[in-house]
């Protein structure tokens, strides 16, 4: 009889019967464990160093976008690190932030450059000598 029970792999009802008894105990246990421990602490997957570097470069580029060369270098490096950190289909959070801050820095620098050019040529327009 013991051998029959032990070799009874094809007879699934014995397994199913065990499953009927388990879910009740599990259902009563899970909600307590869920509300107490899991929801306040959301485990975030660690971001790669390149993504962090991209964020740092993006912030530095925003800070230095007033002096165009400094901002240019940091913004280019920020976009570069964000693109190089993309090892899965989705970009990581830090990399996305670095990319967006670098692009904002580029836009600000080009606006600054345009304002500077307009201010420089503004005095020459009525003279008619330069153009």
């Amino acid at each position, binding site marked *: 009889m013991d051998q029959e029970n032990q070799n009874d792999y094809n007879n699934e009802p014995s397994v199913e019967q065990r499953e009927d008894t388990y879910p009740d105990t599990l259902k009563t246990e899970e909600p307590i464990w869920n509300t107490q421990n899991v929801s306040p602490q959301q485990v975030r997957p660690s971001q*790669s*160093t*390149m993504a962090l570097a991209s964020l740092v470069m993006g912030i530095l580029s925003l800070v230095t976008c007033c002096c165009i*060369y400094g901002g*240019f*270098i940091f*913004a*280019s*490096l920020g*976009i*570069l*690190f964000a*693109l*190089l*950190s*993309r*090892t899965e289909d989705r970009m990581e959070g830090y990399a996305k932030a670095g990319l967006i801050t670098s692009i904002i820095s580029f836009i600000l620098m080009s606006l600054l450059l345009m304002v500077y050019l307009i201010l420089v040529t503004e005095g020459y327009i009525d003279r008619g000598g330069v153009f």
Partner: protein
Amino acid sequence: MKTTSAELKLRARRKLKGKYPISVGAGLIIGAVLSVLITVFIIFAIIFGVTSERLFYDGLDSGIGYILFQIFTILFGIIYTAVMALLMPGYIKMFLNITTDQKYGISDLVFALKNKPLKFIGINLLLFLIGIIIGIPFMVVFVVSIITDFIPVMLVLLVLMYIALIVGSIVVTIYFSQCLFILIESPDKGVLQCLRESVELMKGNKGRFFYIMLSFTGMLLLGYGSMGIGLLWIMPYIQCTLTEFYLDIKTERTESVPASQVDHSYESMQNY
């Protein structure tokens, strides 16, 4: 189904994850060695110019000093290209190790110095000679235009020859792009054999290779924007992608070999 360049680049990025410090270090070491060479050359040139003024007395381009300086510059050019020819295979070898999951390290940079350095200098010399041969039509047209003082016909020919030169160099680069990889993987092969195998490997893959090279334009623009600092990260990425491309076309070639080994000749059938 051939792997797309996006897939190759994704593989390269995955392989390089976490390995950037050593790649940047290797790039900095190579840059440092070449910068030291150039600084030595500049110091020699300044000392030569300052201490041997009398050699330059005989007018604009005819003094002995100028001829000596030209010879000195050409010698320096040869030394510089030889050092580059010995360092680049080491750089490529390191990324080959990274891509094929073997042990890698900064000591890979001296790979060419340890395994038959003359072969690596030889392959560089051969590619340089091929470049000169391709440039001969352009040089001929250029010299003739100088003699004829740039008449419009010669100008048109000059522009056409220049375009032909650019196209020719791109085509030759694509054909011989894999020869260094082949020589690094088996340094016992002859230099001409490596070139022949590179042409063989690139059959049917030239368009893909050209597209991959063009697709790095955006990255290179970012490298220029960061005044060259970004190139320290971009060159490992480009090198890894090209290594993945080489491994990909190598597996395509070895997969297609077993079919050709079946002997369909009538004589072999008579044996059964």
